[in-house]
């Protein structure tokens, strides 16, 4: 990620660059944005594939019949109707679409970091269906993602699960029926350990003690608020007239939903003490933590996590980017699994999400999980954690046809996604993408040429009036440059930094989920 733009346009073409910026705003959809998504044929059959069902083993030379976006049949002897569109997957591997339990793609912004409880804000309201990272992750086999608020606050914003339906409008992205969530965060980020903005006073909380009290305080209020409404509703139901309802509180409403089990808590955390702290607070107020996110010291308290029935969603092998990540180990996922915790491997990062299959494979090396257990880390387990396992996470009849097709066993560094399907539609096709590249380049070049010409013409027209005695032209007013917002998920230690800086740099960058 950059703190600076890196235009590759030469000096003399700078005015053209300005025009290009306008051009990009106007024409970008043609260049890189999604084409209208392909209509889903009513019936598709994927044939000759090695099918890793996740729920019931591997089927060699198997077929999957898809009808109206759902999996209709799976097996070695599937009879496809004559009108079915055939996808020949000979020599290829089909797995359930990858589910990323911690993502910040498709979001215009992710951190309302000004307050310690920002439960009033909602990621659902700022979805950006044109975020190119949707397509990039789709090309990595990801079909669904848990779009989280950042970790700047003890209680953060509301969250939702989306499907990566590239090319569809924002309204079509949410995973239908998936329970919404809310982001909590513990440790260094909500206490702002690594982020101080000059001139700004410290924000409460500044310790892990304060983080606990912030959460307890908010839930005390939420409990009172719920009681006020419950009383009101009871009296109203009893037929009392002329009642004045309690004043609505948009900050407390989502917390009441948590208390009522209608909203999942996804809590960012690192250290064992803060994990146990939130379990105690949850018990005190009678709510459930659905998942601990990152949970890099989860292996230290795996039994407590298992006993509480909380899911753990972690990184494969990130460590040492800050103190609370110094005890992180790549064995975390395997150790927690062995102690009975449902574990998923997540990305927290648009690039990491493009190879979650590989990240899952590492739990075989570190801790000796089986092939099946490893694959579950990015399919069935995150589906269970997000409460969408009735519709996703395995290849079973009746489930959504959300599938990723690889050229070889996906638990390998050599596997490449060939196709990604959501609801039975091919949203990503590697061959199609490659085939379209030349045309896209041509189109881009044609547009650039057109605007170069326009710029030259404009310059010529201007010449007589603008060339003063000194021969200097007045400086043109520079149009707004369209720069994609630099988005910073979490503390985000991205492995491959593109500016040669270290991974921790990300943590201090602007605009992100600090």
């Amino acid at each position, binding site marked *: 990620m950059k703190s600076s733009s890196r235009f590759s346009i030469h000096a003399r073409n700078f005015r053209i660059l300005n025009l290009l910026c306008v051009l990009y705003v106007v024409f970008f959809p043609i260049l890189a944005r999604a084409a209208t998504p392909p209509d889903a044929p009513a019936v598709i059959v994927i044939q000759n594939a090695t099918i890793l069902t996740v729920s019931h083993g591997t089927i060699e030379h198997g077929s999957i019949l898809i009808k109206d976006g759902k999996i209709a049949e799976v097996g070695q002897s599937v009879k496809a109707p004559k009108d079915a569109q055939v996808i020949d997957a000979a020599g290829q591997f089909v797995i359930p679409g990858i589910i990323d339990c911690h993502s910040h793609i498709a979001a215009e912004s992710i951190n309302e970091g000004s307050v310690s409880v920002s439960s009033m804000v909602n990621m659902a309201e700022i979805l950006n269906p044109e975020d190119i990272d949707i397509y990039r992750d789709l090309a990595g086999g990801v079909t669904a993602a848990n779009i989280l608020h950042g970790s700047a606050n003890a209680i953060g914003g509301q969250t939702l699960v989306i499907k990566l339906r590239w090319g569809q409008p924002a309204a079509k992205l949410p995973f239908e029926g998936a329970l919404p969530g809310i982001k909590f965060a513990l440790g260094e980020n909500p206490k702002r350990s690594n982020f101080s903005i000059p001139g700004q006073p410290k924000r409460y909380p500044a310790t892990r003690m304060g983080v606990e009290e912030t959460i307890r305080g908010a839930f005390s209020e939420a409990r009172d608020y719920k009681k006020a409404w419950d009383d009101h509703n009871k009296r109203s139901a009893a037929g009392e007239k002329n009642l004045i309802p309690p004043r609505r509180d948009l900050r407390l409403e989502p917390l009441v939903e948590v208390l009522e089990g209608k909203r999942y808590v996804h809590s960012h955390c690192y250290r064992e003490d803060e994990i146990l702290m939130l379990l105690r607070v949850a018990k005190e107020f009678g709510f459930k933590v659905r998942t601990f996110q990152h949970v890099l010291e989860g292996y230290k308290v795996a039994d407590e996590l298992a006993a509480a029935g909380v899911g753990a969603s972690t990184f494969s092998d990130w460590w040492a980017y800050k103190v609370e990540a110094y005890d992180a180990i790549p064995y975390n996922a395997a150790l927690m699994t062995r102690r009975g915790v449902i574990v998923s491997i997540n990305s927290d990062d648009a690039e990491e999400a493009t190879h979650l299959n590989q990240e899952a494979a590492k739990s075989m*090396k570190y801790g000796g999980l089986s092939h099946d257990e490893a694959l579950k880390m990015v399919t069935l387990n995150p589906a269970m954690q997000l409460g969408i396992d009735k519709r996703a996470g395995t290849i079973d009849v009746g489930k959504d046809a959300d599938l990723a097709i690889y050229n070889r066993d996906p638990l390998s560094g050599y596997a490449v996604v060939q196709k990604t399907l959501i609801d039975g539609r091919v949203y990503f096709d590697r061959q199609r993408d490659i085939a379209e590249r030349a045309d896209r380049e041509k189109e881009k070049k044609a547009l650039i040429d057109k605007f170069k010409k326009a710029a030259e013409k404009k310059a010529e027209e201007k010449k007589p009036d603008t060339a003063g005695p000194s021969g200097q032209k007045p*400086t043109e007013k520079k149009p707004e440059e369209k720069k994609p917002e630099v988005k910073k998920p979490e503390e985000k230690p991205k*492995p491959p930094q*593109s500016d040669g800086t270290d991974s921790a740099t990300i943590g201090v960058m*602007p605009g992100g989920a600090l």
Partner: protein
Amino acid sequence: MKSTGLIFRIALVVSALCALSAIAFGQAQPSTTYALTHAKIFTLVGNTIEDGTVVLHDGKIAAVGATVEVPAGAQVIDAKGLQVYPGIFDSITQMGLREIGAVSATVDSTETGNYNPDVVAATAVSASSEHIPVTRAAGITEVLAVPGSGGFDSGGSSNMIGGQASAIHLAGWAIDEMLIKKSAAMALHWPEIETQTFDFATFSRKEKPYSEAKQEYDKQVNELTDWLERARHYAQVMEKGSPAKYDRDLKLEALVPVVRGELPVLVFADRSREIRNAVEFCDKQKLRMILAGGEEAYKVKDLLRSKGIPVILRPMLTLPPDEDDPYDRLLLQPAELAAAGVTFAIASFDNSFARRLGQNAANAVAHGLPYEEALKAVTIYPARIFGLDDQIGTIEQGKLANLIVTNGDPLELTTDVKYLFIRGQLTSMDNRHLRLYEKYSKRPKPQ
């Protein structure tokens, strides 16, 4: 490619037991002679030996081949079913210079000021960094520690000249034992023409007109030119006069090998414009350039090949620089550079992600890079680029015995390194992560 039967495993364990017991934390006695027998040996020079022996003696590879005799008294490790490779060389890291990214007290990677040619990475490499054993366990036997690559501690900026990069073995009680080459390259961060920057003082994004950005860029390049000019004058004075006759300038003195073309400059640049500018500059200044980063090296591959400039590529598992680039833009590049005849290595540019080096190379293979080229890009090519190929990078008689014994392809995610030798010594693969894993695996169920 899991190991074969139980008997084999027992034999393996017994044969290595006494050796292993001696290497709990550091290295075994240097005098030990080892023979790895019945191994499949990927020498990376010529053909792979299907069933061969490697003899390690006195820190070096004493013999390698299909019909090599085991010397008397040698510690024999039966490597049947296993494979031997040169140790992996991660040729851009901040190993030992940065422990915990967010804690500046543990970070020594970037000195303040823009010109620090006299600072040397090896000076600050902490031999007891936890990163070293963790990285070693991934089969990485040596790294280049590079100063001045920016980061948290430097407020996000990079020096122009960051200092001298040091090539080190990832084993040793103290830095002196770890050194391969104290000064292997001079790190130089090529300036960008930046119209948008982030100001850490005010924590806000700033924009400036191109003309202003270009002026600043020109100023930086002029300043660099000036430093090099002064270093040339200094070199002349050094040649003519005795040290007593002129005032020593340590910074200029450090630049002398650079202007003489003896020490290569490791130029960090990613965009094609910056790369072209840097190539032109180094050409004019007669500097030996190694390009580092090179996200858009593919756009200038003919230039790089014709000038003979090698590239250290950052991880291919990086999103493309532009939104309208193909999604796999960086993954495709190694194959394109190889086809164009550009010499390149792949490096992690990191510490905690150093162990992803093999994964990155494997992904490059998945996108068209020939497998052997990928192996060489993390072994002999970086060794050659930094002039260390007489010592490391292949399994040849006379080279330093830095090698790994694995149960499969070292670039694959699930492969385990079974034995690791650094300078001929069987080296422990114990590390912080393994210790914490073992400790908490044993935690009794809470009451």
